[in-house]
């Protein structure tokens, strides 16, 4: 699938924004000012971007605990996201959700999720709603290799086929569920091998290659939108940081991340490809780098300056009516 220059720049901007967001959080977390559990997506950006580039306002995504990249790629406001992670009243969820519960239903982002395997059933529901309401929308669930074993996920794969849902299931296999290797926890060779068990296509793509993801994602979205049929895609990817911030990562091989960063970085590979093909100039990407950096800097400053939620907020938003 040939991307326009605008699309290429957009893809790069998404990935770079995510990267800046996550790298900065890594630094900020160390200062002790960010509360709670924070799971960074750095290294996996091509996945969020490659899929979400195919989605529009009709479409929904269900995410997981590692949801910042998905949110940004689906168009959530970066300032509001940052404020949310700091627990401020200006946050996307008014400071009540935090990193693990970032959501913006108005943007079709159904929520990060603190429960491994919590999202895919919800995505089935969004796909069902799109189908019944005839919106033409699709739903996409992002989840990890660890989640791919969870019963809720496999049930969702079955349901999507039984109900012919316009749904895409994306396993982001970053090699680990916390400290446990996917080689241990996933009993088949590739997580995508499970697709056959649910009579849907299963696709494996290189998670460092934005173009491969974009291509596979395009076909899956087409299949969902036109044929109302589901697809399972496994993205072989890597995370640059620990499971959560604070993870000493002693379970990882020596230099594993160093080598990945040097040789398999999705942003570097993207840049090399588009510049060597003369589609985009280095300077254009550098400009985006600068803008992304500024955006995140501004978001952090504003988040830190924002107020915490009013005390009265403790008791609101439990019910719509009581």
């Amino acid at each position, binding site marked *: 699938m040939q991307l326009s220059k605008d699309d290429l720049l957009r893809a790069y901007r998404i990935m770079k924004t995510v990267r800046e967001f996550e790298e900065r959080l890594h630094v900020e977390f160390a200062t002790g000012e960010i509360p709670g559990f924070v799971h960074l997506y750095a290294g996996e950006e091509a996945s969020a971007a490659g899929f979400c580039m195919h989605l529009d306002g009709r479409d929904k995504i269900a995410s997981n605990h590692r949801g910042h990249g998905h949110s940004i790629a689906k168009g959530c406001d970066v300032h509001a996201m940052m404020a949310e992670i700091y627990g401020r009243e200006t946050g996307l969820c008014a400071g009540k959700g935090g990193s693990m519960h970032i959501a913006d239903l108005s943007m079709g982002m159904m929520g990060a999720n603190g429960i491994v395997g919590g999202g895919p059933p919800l995505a*089935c*529901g969004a796909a069902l709603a799109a189908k019944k309401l005839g919106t033409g929308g699709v739903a996409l669930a992002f989840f990890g290799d660890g989640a791919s074993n969870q019963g809720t996920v496999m049930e969702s794969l079955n349901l999507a086929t039984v109900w012919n849902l316009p749904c895409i299931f994306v396993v982001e296999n970053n090699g680990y569920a916390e400290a446990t290797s996917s080689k241990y926890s996933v009993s088949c060779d590739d997580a995508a091998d499970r697709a056959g068990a649910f009579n849907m296509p299963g696709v494996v793509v290189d998670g460092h290659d934005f173009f491969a993801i974009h291509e596979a994602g395009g076909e899956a979205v087409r299949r969902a939108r036109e044929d109302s049929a589901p697809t399972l895609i496994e993205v072989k990817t890597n995370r640059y940081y620990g499971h959560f911030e604070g993870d000493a990562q002693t379970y990882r091989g020596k230099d594993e991340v160093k080598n990945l960063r040097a040789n398999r970085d999705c942003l570097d590979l993207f840049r090399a490809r588009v510049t060597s093909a003369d589609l985009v100039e280095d300077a254009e990407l550098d400009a985006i780098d600068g803008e992304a950096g500024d955006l995140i800097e501004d978001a952090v400053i504003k988040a830190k300056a924002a107020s915490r939620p009013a005390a009265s907020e403790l008791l609101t938003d439990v019910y719509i009516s009581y």
Partner: protein
Amino acid sequence: MARKITYQQAVNEALAQEMARDETVIVMGEDVAGGSGADGEMDAWGGPLGITKGLYSQFGDRVMDTPITESAFIGAAVGAATAGLRPVAELMFVDFMGVCFDQMFNQAAKFRYMFGGKAETPVVVRTMYGAGLRAAAQHSQCLYSIFTHIPGLKVVTPSTPYDAKGLLIQSIRDNDPVIFFEHKTLYTLEGDVPEEAYTIPFGEANVTREGSDVTIVTLGRMVHVAHEAADALSSDGISCEVVDLRTTSPMDTDTIIESVENTGRLVVLDESHPRCSIASDVSALVSQEAFDSLKAPIRMVTAPHVPVPFADNLEDLYIPDAAQLQQAVRTVMGKD
């Protein structure tokens, strides 16, 4: 309202009327139609007791059979509710919550709060509960106290055909997640039910019998046991007020307190296990908020802290009955 129908028909009618009124209402669950993929009749079952039978014939694929995957389809109902539908999912027996509770208590219940007030999740989970059908330990539990414990869920426990219809319509129109408890022994109960659609508001208990000596707070099937006991007691000159909670979350604390302020005595009758139950919840409320009105210790009449037994004689002993309730009322009256 001269027309009499059963509790089961009332549930069915509420579903049918709401589906007819609102295209976004859909029904899903195991065999809610029945016969999907099979050679015989479609719409064969309507659930194991036939409660939803006929809906498929009337509304076609807005009534969806599901595989036996409660996490997936209840989660799908929840997800669909955030995306424009008003799904009514059937959890066949509430005892099966253990395979899908996450989608109810961590997802549906918490979206609105976690997302800073921006989510609406108008999903209804209908479910069957209670003892009495010799269905043993895994098909006879109440469990409504577990759902009541969870902020963000609304919990509805109709005791009559009239309430079943009005509360179910309210549940479907309500914009919060609702779990709707149907007692399996009440399905055949007949009662007056208006033909037209109507709603009964949540959080308003029903004083089904007025009295001056003792307040009996109860719910679901036990409302009928309370009336049986109250009838018997009235011939002994003891006047019982019966408060049917109708919904345990929200719970109508005002009506409970007011009644106890009038009678000065409270017995709580609850079919479920005693620990951390509705019985203890109501007792605690009153011991905090209406203590000074109390003329006697509160008494709880509940099932024992044991699983539901299979043998018919044991199950009959298990279920709280009018005799036990009468005894408790006499005790608080100082007449035992």
